[in-house]
Structure formats: C-alpha cells, structure tokens
C-alpha cells in the first residue's frame, strides 16, 4: 500500500500528496495530546498544561533523557514497599526459596537465610517439607506458624512484586517514555516468568538487562539479553552443547533461531536453517553457573551467566556468509552478535517495529527507511533513532493521530492515570489484564504480545473494556481507588485509541 502511494506521488505530483494521511500535518492544538498518548501511558489531569508550559519540544527531549527528570516521590514510596525488586537472583532464591531450594535446605546442602524474619519463614517451609517428604514429626513454633499465615508462598511474592512494580511505574513514573520503552523492549526480548527458574530470574532480567539500555546502544541491549540467565534458561541455550563429548549432549536450536527471527533480522531477514545450526554452534557453552553452594536444578534459580569452554563447539562455522574460524571460544557468540547488529535486515526490522508501536499499525515505508538508516549510521543508537521518529512529519500527521488501538495494558493504565486514581492493589488490575488477554510477564511464546493495535480488537475485549470503564467511574474497579471523576470520558470510543 505504501509503495502504491509512492508511485502515485511520483507520477501525479504534489496535488495528490494531500490524500496520504501521513502527509497531512496534525493540527497544532492536538499535538500535545498526541505526544502524551504515544510517549506516555496516557495523560494525567494537568499533564497537558504542564507540557504546554514547558514546551512540547523540551518535554520530548527530557523524556528522551530520563536522567534529567526527578522521579515522582509517590512512585518511590510505592516501590519501597516491595522487598524483592532490588535483590540479585541468588539473594532472592535464598530469601524467598522456591521448592527446589527448600529441598536443598532440608537436605542440609544449603544454609538458611541470615535475615531473622526471612529465616523464621524459611525454617517453617523447611519443616513443612520434611514433614511431608520423610514423615518427620518436627513441630512448627508459634512464630513459624504465624509467619506462614501472614506471608504468601515465596515464588508468589517474587513474581507478584515484579508485576506490581511494573504497574506502579507505568502509572506513576515521571519518566514515562522510559517505562513505555521498558515495556516495548521486554516484550521484544520476551521471557516467560512461569517457566521454572525464570520465576526468579525475570526481576533481574528486566532491571539489569533491559532497563539500562532502552535508550542506549542496541548492541549493549542485545548482549545483555544474550548473556542473562533468564534468556539462557527461557530459550534453552544453557543446555546447548557440542555433540557427544563427555557430559555434553548436543545442540539445542531454540535460542539461535529466535535470536535471528525475533530479536534481530526478522523472519524474512535472509537466514537459512543452516545458519540456525551454525549460530547455535557458536553459542554452545553459553550457559548458567548455579548459585554458589548448590547443585542441580535448585542452583539455576539464583544462577549467573557462565561460559563453559568444555561445552563449546570450537570448530569452524559460517554464519550468514561470514567465516568464523576455529578456536574462537566465547568470541564466536560475540561475533555472531556483531554480524547480526550490523546486518541491514536488523536495522529495518527494528525500525519498523518501533514505528509500528509509536506511529501506526502500518507505518509509512519512507519513515521506516529513514529510521533504519539512522540506526545503521549511529551504530544502533536507540535515542537517536527515537529522536528522528519524534521529529518526523509522519509522527506529527493525521495518519498517526488516534490510529492505534490501545493494548489492554495501555488502556487500563491510561484510564487509571486519567482519573488520577490511586493504585492500591496492582495485582487486582493485573488479574483484569489476564482476562483481557495480556497477563503481565506471562506471554509464553517468544514472539511477545502483538504490537499491532488491530489484534486487540474483538468482542470479548470490547466488553471487558466497557465494564472496566464503568467500574472505574463508579470507584468499583479492582485494586483502584478513584477520588474524582476523570477529565476525559472513559466511555467514549476515542478513549480506546491512542
């Protein structure tokens, strides 16, 4: 379609340019609303005035440089109530032990945590385990019994707080673009929190591998995901080894394929099944070192990246036509990441995906090409690519305005923000998102959730959205306290769009 438009422009001149909605300039008084719809999770009462006062350009610049923005104290207070979000994976596995770790503790292979409250609780879990498993008669102390009553199971705390932190940040953060991008890039490099050890690794994955790089260099983002145990576990690379050598068992293609199809080149980016095998060979030995003092599965929950040369296939490989000489060791994988980052398909694939999120479901090809070219020219500098997009005529066009159907997350958070409501129990909202088809951190497939607004339109979703609008207005929405009525009409069809 966009190609057709280009042709008609070429032949018929500028008179017909007006028929292309991406050439029609968005009227000035809609620009602030548009920017707030796209760079944030929706306007709060007073946001539009504040942006107007500051100046739209300046506001965008600050959003692109979130370090210059003071964070909302209300957010910091909410986050301070969460106990796990700043722990390392191994600290978390020790303090909030999963069943595998409880087992290791019961068998005396692992020590109890030091912190007194945690120690009491974990000791209670260990006692319960022993009674169930080997018929021990050990009794719970009153303090232990109380602790079990008051606290949810450890794994639930960990995954629950991850979800709570996301909804708090989306709702309250002043660094809105950073939050939108954290959501975008996590979804791009999706992992599934309910897959085994990822229950404990996902917190660190988002915090340490995704968030620091969303406005940095793509190569750093890619490398951080490639070496994070959450990704190594989710796409099984930790198990992929050179074929039949001692304990080594053989290749697993899962990560290699998704790395090219979903993370970099795109499915039509020009790789073959042979490339998948060769890339998988390059990444053999990129595995997980179990948390210290543990053996077996339990250790994965607090694991770290580890290159194991004994599992690596050190033979020669050819990836996308590039020869990777024998004996490269860990550098093989690094070289693959370099090849992929600099491949022209990667720039186009990522530019199109970003433009689909921020401009339109079917973004103009000319814009995508300019963004891709900026990506190539700046060694994948994501801030520069974003800045180009936010300065483009296509972004500020009628074709872009209100053209995107909100995802369930965008709809729910934008409604909470619009009413200035207080998010009291984020997990209740998360439950609602599940019935709307977007359970947070729980997209099982590596594709992540659809970036295309149209995919979120169906009758079940429409009714759920309507019910939510009514409930929020009547202060009956789960987990949310609404003090005053919204400045915008939550029931209006336009509110479903951004």
């Amino acid at each position, binding site marked *: 379609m966009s190609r057709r438009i280009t042709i008609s422009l070429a032949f018929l001149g500028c008179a017909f340019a007006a028929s292309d909605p991406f050439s029609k300039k968005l009227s000035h008084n809609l620009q602030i609303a548009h920017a707030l719809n796209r760079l944030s999770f929706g306007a709060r009462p007073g946001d539009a005035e504040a942006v107007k006062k500051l100046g739209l350009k300046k506001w965008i610049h600050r959003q692109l440089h979130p370090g210059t923005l003071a964070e909302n104290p209300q957010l910091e207070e909410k986050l301070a109530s969460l106990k796990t979000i700043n722990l390392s994976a191994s600290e978390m596995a020790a303090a909030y032990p999963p069943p595998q770790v409880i087992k290791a503790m019961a068998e005396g292979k692992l020590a109890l945590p030091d912190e007194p409250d945690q120690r009491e609780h974990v000791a209670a879990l260990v006692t319960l385990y022993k009674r169930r498993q080997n018929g021990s008669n050990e009794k719970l102390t009153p303090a232990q019994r109380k602790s079990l009553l008051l606290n949810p199971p450890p794994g639930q705390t960990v995954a629950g707080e991850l979800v709570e932190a996301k909804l708090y940040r989306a709702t309250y953060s002043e660094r809105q673009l950073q939050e939108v991008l954290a959501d975008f890039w996590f979804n791009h490099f999706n992992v599934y929190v309910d897959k085994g050890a990822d229950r404990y690794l996902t917190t660190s994955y988002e915090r340490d591998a995704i968030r620091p790089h969303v406005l940095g260099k793509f190569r750093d983002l890619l490398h951080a995901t490639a070496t994070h145990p959450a990704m190594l576990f989710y*796409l*099984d690379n930790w*198990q*992929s*080894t050179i*074929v039949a050598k001692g304990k*080594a*068992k*053989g*290749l*697993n*293609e*899962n990560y290699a*394929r998704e790395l090219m*199809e979903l993370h970099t080149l795109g*499915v039509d980016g020009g790789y073959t*099944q042979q490339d*998948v095998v060769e890339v998988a060979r390059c990444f053999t030995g990129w595995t997980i070192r179990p948390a210290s003092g543990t053996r077996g599965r339990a250790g994965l929950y607090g694991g770290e990246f580890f290159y194991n040369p004994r599992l690596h296939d050190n033979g020669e490989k050819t990836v996308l036509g590039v020869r990777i000489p024998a004996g490269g060791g860990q550098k093989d994988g690094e070289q693959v990441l370099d090849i992929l980052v600099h491949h022209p398909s990667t720039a186009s694939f990522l530019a199109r995906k970003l433009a689909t999120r921020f401009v339109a479901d079917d973004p103009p090809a000319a814009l995508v090409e300019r963004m891709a070219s900026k990506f190539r020219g700046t060694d994948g500098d994501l801030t520069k690519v974003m800045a180009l997009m936010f300065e483009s005529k296509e972004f500020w066009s009628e074709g872009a305005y209100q053209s995107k159907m909100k995802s369930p997350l965008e709809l729910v958070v934008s409604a909470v923000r619009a009413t200035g409501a207080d998010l009291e129990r984020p997990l209740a909202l998360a439950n609602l998102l599940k*019935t*709307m*088809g977007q359970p947070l951190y729980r997209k*099982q*497939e*590596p*594709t992540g959730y659809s970036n295309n607004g149209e*995919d979120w*339109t*169906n*009758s*079940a*979703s*429409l*009714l*759920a959205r*309507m*019910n939510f609008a*009514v409930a929020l207005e009547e202060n009956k929405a789960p987990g949310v306290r609404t003090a005053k009525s919204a400045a915008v009409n939550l*029931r*209006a*069809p*336009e509110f*479903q*769009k951004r």
Partner: protein
Amino acid sequence: MNRRIFVKTSGLALFGTGAIPGWLARAAEGQKTRKKVLVTIFQRGAMDGLHAVVPYGDPRYKPLRPTLAITDSLNLDGFFGLHPALAPLKPIWDAKQLAIIEAVGSPDPTRSHFDAQDYMESGTPGLKATRDGWLNRALPSDAASPVRAVAVGPDLPRMLRGKQPAVALNSVREFQVRDAMAAREFESSFASSSMADLSRETFEAVRILKSLPAADSKVTYPASRLGQSLKEIARLIKADVGLEVAFADMGGWDTHVNEAPRLAQLLGEFGGALAAFWQDLGDRLDDVAVVTMSEFGRTAKENGSRGTDHGHANVMFAFGGGIQGGCIHGKWPGLAPENLHERRDLAVTTDFRTVLSPLVSSHLGNHAANVFPGFTPEPFTLFGAAASQPTNGARRE
C-alpha cells in the same frame, strides 16, 4: 429447538431491536434443520506428533529417540500407538470415530512458530498478504446468527478474522456489559465510531447469549483451559443458537527441553478435554466435526536436551460428523534418513488443506476452492469408508 428459538425471538422483541433477523425467521418457520458445526482446535507451539502418536512399528523410531521413545504406547493398528496420557481418546478410536491423520503439514518449509501458525490460520501457506482466516471464509455467506462463529478466549484468532462477524468470548457468563444503562449508552456511542461494526456484532451476540438456557451438561470437563473452552462450545451447540464454527486453542507445546514429563501432562489435558467433549455431545456429534492441528512437527531425532527442535510434518486428530474413525489416514513416509525432510524431520505427505477441504465442503457445505484459493486438494477420503481406499491407508515401509 424451534421452541427455544421462539423464546429468544420474543426476547429480542422485548429489547425492541425491530425486525427479526432473516436467519431467525427461517429457523422459526422450521425451514432449517440443526446447523452443522465445525470445531477447530489449535495446539500452539508445535506438538511433537511422534511422541503423541508413536510409530513404534517403524524400526528407525527408537534409535532416533534414545531417551524419549515411548515403550508402552496404546496399540492402535499394530504399527502406531497412542501415548499413554492420550488414553482418554482410546474409546473414541475403539468406537471407530477417532480419525488420525499422519504426516500432515504445510508445504511451506518455515520453522518459525509465528509464520507457520499464520499460514495454517490464513490457509494460504507462503502468502503473508492474506488478510482473513480460512475458518472465516469457510462460513457460508447467507444471513446467519450473530454467534455463528465463536472463539473461546480473550483473543480472536487469525483463523476466524475476516468479513463474517466472529465473536471471541471467555465464557458465556462474562459476555455482557454488566450495567444495563451503560450498555445502551455504549451501544449508541460506539455505533458512530470506527469500531461500529465490532460494536454492533458484539451487542447482537450479547442479546442472544443473555437468554441462553442454563448449562445442563452431565459430563465433568477437566479444569484445564481447553477443557473449559470445549465446555462453553458444547453449551452453545446444545442451545441451538446458530453456531457454525468454533475455535479453541491450547499452548505450551514448544518442548525443546526434557519434554517427556511436560508432554505427559499436556497430552493428558488435551485428551481429557476432547474425550469430555465427545461424551458430552453424544449423538449431536452427527452434526459436529472436530479437527485438531499444530503449526509443524518436531525433529525426528531428539536434541541434546531430551527435547526436540522445530521440524516439519505432524499429526492431526478428527472425529464426529461422519468422519471415518478407527483408522490412520494419510501416507507414512517413514523415518529412514533419506525419507526425512532435509534429513531431519518427518516429511509432509498430506497438505493440511487436503484434510480441511472436505470439512469445509462436505461438512459445512461451502466451496473449498474459495476457502483455499489456488489449492487443489489431493484425493483424500475423510468421510465414509476410508479404510477401503488403498491410496489413503497409511503405507508402511
């Protein structure tokens, strides 16, 4: 059935929607018999078909799967056996109703989940530009019930998207705007928005489902998502609301690592849900055909992590609607290296559209050529006496 429709008709009149839709009028006049229904089930993630329906008679099977080979499968025909967790399906096979189609898949060689699912749902392998799904195109275009096409779940799948209205619902119970006044307000404000069609179709369906008789199933469905989805579909079928096609899906089949325990659980859920549906529908199954599919199969050889990677051909299950069961349909290509696709995956000997075409034409009464444009099905007998067709019986090495 006619009485139920009349009740609903008067219900509609109370809502003041004006003229009675043509399909209701015809149904009320008794001109129509019970609708034929096609139920499709998608196993997302690529089920390991060689683990589900075990070709234990193929001498290459065990060597390819040193840790995964199933040794206690439930014998079907002396060559294939069902995974023990699929035991709930055995009675359907024994009743000569369960058809198993082997070595079926897409002619497109992609090993991308996303693309392969997309092709299996659009019904046009290799063509990404197709906008609608084959199950939507499979609907006859005459006036019909607002709930003629239903997907259970929070999303409307690619397969059901298209020109004909199709409804996604989590459950009949949840399918409403709880506040009646707000519902009227929404219906009128959305009628003049860019979501007008979706809104109108949704509220029409809400009105029909509001007056649905209470569920009266005596069968206990498994608590799994697929079990609950099929329970909703059975309820709609039995209520005669004009359902023609239905969709349910089940994820989790992408088993790259330590797949045996995971698949035992998934296959148990899958088999249990299908068996409950079979039992629940009883003789309604004369009008209802069920077919299952998964985007591609998995590597014939197990990988380095007691799992399998992305492969090619897979297995489909089908029953009801006069489908010839108790036999293996299709041609078995064998597991010898030279017979494998790219020397690694079970080869496709039957195009998935060849299996779906008779369901579209003989069962739903639509033209398969319109549903699968540019495709000519191979000779294939899904209905009637398939076992007597020599080209159709699974050929062994």
